[in-house]
């Protein structure tokens, strides 16, 4: 028996002592936190104001066995605290279940808090094993609590709605892109790169948006707008970019998956150019102690709309359109660079990072004064567009109209 019992007992002891999974928790004992917000609180002694959006599973799912009238798909809790981990525990006074962060989709930072700086706040999210690092970080142009309190239709809870629309608009529109927590931490810790985060604000009647009636009407009283990218300097919010400037940044960061560009072809008429593939290459070079950034974008596009009488069967016309499209994009990028370089004076495009890669010696000497050098450093943008297809027709129907 000793031959069997000894290894068996060793195995049992090992499984008992070496395992890290004693925290068994039933599904009915957890509250799934789907969105979390951090604001600056009004109180001096407890400077953080945490808010949590929790899924009300019984209401969300059709298959739920617990009936009852229509309730809110999500519950909202808030608490003031000194630290994030304290706040998470403090909120248990209000919630009957353990908060569960494994499915957190968005972290919303209030504008005021972001302006003060987010530097030390992110540690808990990296340290705590219960947190995942793949949620989106957004900066609210207002209060984070307002974002988490607003109802939305289509998705199960507002936080999922935000998460899905970030992904969707990144894929379809390209004017902004999602910054995940892990990307945020990467740009916080890398040299020569400043932090950006997605921007969000609630448009409309914020009070009315809190109620379930917000999603019972066809045009909701308030809704989320995800257009502007929040730009940081020294981990402090310095401002938001406009939608087109955001796309300018997205081009540089190679985040544009697909988008539509408009090229003028007459008064109030445009040719729609649908970019289907785009690849951005950043290259820095240091010549005569002068760093320079070269942004090269090569892309493939289709023609998606022709509003004027253009003979696009002719290669020359296509070339013309390509050229114009390149100019539009270059302009967009240059406008964004002018804003972050001259106005915000923050290196969100990662210029310094590229210089570091290109010329480490130069970087070592100048990294402390980089912020001053950056403001005046030249950036060159080169876009190469290839139009591949023009859709189901070639010439627009306008060229078939023979009315004098």
């Amino acid at each position, binding site marked *: 028996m000793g031959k069997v019992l000894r290894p068996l007992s060793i195995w049992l002891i090992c499984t008992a002592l070496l395992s890290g999974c004693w925290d*068994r928790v039933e599904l009915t004992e957890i509250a799934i936190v789907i969105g979390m917000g951090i604001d600056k609180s009004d109180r001096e002694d407890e400077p953080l104001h945490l808010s949590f959006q929790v899924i009300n*599973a019984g209401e969300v799912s059709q298959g739920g066995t*617990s009936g009852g009238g229509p309730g809110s798909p999500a519950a909202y809790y808030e608490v003031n605290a000194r630290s994030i981990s304290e706040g998470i525990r403090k909120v248990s006074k209000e919630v009957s279940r353990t908060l569960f962060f494994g499915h957190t989709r968005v972290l919303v930072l209030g504008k005021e808090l972001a302006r003060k700086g987010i530097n030390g706040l992110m540690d808990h999210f990296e340290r705590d094993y219960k947190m995942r690092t793949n949620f989106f970080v957004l900066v609210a142009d207002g209060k984070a609590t307002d974002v988490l309190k607003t109802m939305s239709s289509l998705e199960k809870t507002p936080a999922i709605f935000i998460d899905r629309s970030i992904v969707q608009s990144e894929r379809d529109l390209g004017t902004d892109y999602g910054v995940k927590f892990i990307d945020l931490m990467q740009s916080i810790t890398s040299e020569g790169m400043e932090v950006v985060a997605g921007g969000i604000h609630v448009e409309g009647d914020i009070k009315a948006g809190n109620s379930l009636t917000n999603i019972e009407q066809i045009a909701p009283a308030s809704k989320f707008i995800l257009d502007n990218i929040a730009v940081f300097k020294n981990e402090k919010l310095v401002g938001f970019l406009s939608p087109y400037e955001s796309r300018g940044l997205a081009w540089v960061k190679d985040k544009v998956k697909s988008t539509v560009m408009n090229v003028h072809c007459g008064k109030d008429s445009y040719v729609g150019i649908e970019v289907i593939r785009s690849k951005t290459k950043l290259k820095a070079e240091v010549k005569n102690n002068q760093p320079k950034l070269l942004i090269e974008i090569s892309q493939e596009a289709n023609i998606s709309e022709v509003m004027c009488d253009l003979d696009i069967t002719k290669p020359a016309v296509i070339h013309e359109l390509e050229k114009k499209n390149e100019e539009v994009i270059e302009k967009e990028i240059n406008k964004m660079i002018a804003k972050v370089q001259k106005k915000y004076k923050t290196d969100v495009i990662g210029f310094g990072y590229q210089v570091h890669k290109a010329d480490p010696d130069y970087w070592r000497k100048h990294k402390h004064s980089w912020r001053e050098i950056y403001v005046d450093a030249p950036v060159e943008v080169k876009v190469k567009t290839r139009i591949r297809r023009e859709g189901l027709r070639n010439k627009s129907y306008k060229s078939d109209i023979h009315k004098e």
Partner: protein
Amino acid sequence: MKLFTNKKRKQVKKNPQIEEQEKKELELYSGETLYTDLQQNLEQIKSTLGNSNDIIIRQFRIGKRWHLDAAIIYTDGMADSDLITNSVMNSFLKESSQKNLDSGIDENTLIEVIKNEVLNLVDIHIANDWKGLYLALLSGDTVVLFNGITQAITADTKGWDARGVEEPTTSTVIRGPKDGFTETFRINTSLIRRRIRSPKLWLEQRKIGEVSQTEIGIMYIKGIANEGVLSELRERLDRINIDLVLESGYIEKFIEDEVYSPFPTIIYSERPDVVVANLVEGRIAIVVDGTPFVLIVPATFSTFFQSPEDYYQRFDFGSFVRLIRYLSFLIALLVPAIYVALTTYHQEMIPTPLLISLAAQREGVPFPAIVETVFMEIIFEILREAGLRMPKAIGNAISIVGALVIGDAAVNAGLVSPAIVIVVALTAISSFVSPAFSMGLAVRLLRFVAILMAGTLGLYGITMFLLLLLLHLCSMRSFGVPYLQGIAPLNMIEQQDIFVRFPLWMMKKRPSLIAQDRIRLGHDQGPQKPSLEKIWNQKGGKDNGDG
């Protein structure tokens, strides 16, 4: 560290005196010769068999002058009485009148004359002692006794009502032979021999069971079957000392390698084609009288996932189905455990929408996930067992109770969540996929172990469980062949017939360690597409010649 090996089977030492006595009792009649007097012999038979009604004794006189007293004895119902009347009685009463068989004739001459000139039956033997006589009598043979002679003639007149060859009920195929083994030993061996017309197919016969004297046949192909395995099998069979053998399961329990393992190390099959295919691969079949299930040794893990149909259908589909089988093995083994682990430990691993609906389903369910799962699995096992044992007419009631009460009412009553019903249903269906029922039994047992491990340690527990399972499987052997032969130790050639099935013409070798002669095919057996010219020129040539 070997945790579950049980290589050395300890032999319990018996008191030698008791052993001796047992032996004596069991071999009561061997060596005891018959009496010379016919009446005395008949009395002895009657008293030994307790005047049993079904023993028929018919006395008569034979010889030219009808002087020699004789008697035939047979068991009614086991012997073919038509055959006895037409052949045995007929030959004695008619043929013997031509022969000089008066009393006082030399014993051996008489037997020779009867054997060679009188009895018109094929299979005739001489019984010298009581043991042989009783064995023949109780197997359905006819025993002939003569006055003054201490030998008995036994004639094979076996004939009883037996079930005919029917389609096997336990393993059916869409394509493939539809005959199955029966309860009769001779029919079973003939079903095998009918498929292998080779003199190399050898049959060794022995009797096991001191009381039942059950016929056991070892069938193998001389030259292909591994001699080592064969002699090991003979040794193990000879060691069996049991009173009764009712089914091949009795034999299996005595000769299997791993007693303390849920996994079977011997295959059984009801299908002659399966047995024959295994014989030709070098395995050995054990046919047991009284059961349609023939044992096949040695068995490795992968053989339990092979169905005859894999080979009858085209190889692509055969491979696909086999992969499905391995998949369903894993599903049946692990899905409830994974459900428990994910819902109680690793909620972050479930996609958010699924987690939300699972959480919604679990609202109001009073039990923890593990209790719910074990509860439902046990209920399913009860249902399955009830469905098996119930009279067929009431069987429908079971499915109604199962579907309505367990599936629907339990969910509506808030006892269990709908998800667990799906999990149980999925595992139930998957556990039926295995072509070998015995492997399905192993999975049914191990599933509960997996659930418990998952419920106490989460995915870590499942990993531990799988590791232990792997260690256990690696340590197992079936007649000296590693249980995971082909997988561990890895053998690339054998991979042709483990997870997938290669086209038959590509499988050139028989499994190693099992077959002695490993070459299965000649060279270049693959289908060769002739060029169009070859076909058309032949025809064209003929036409031209005629023209």
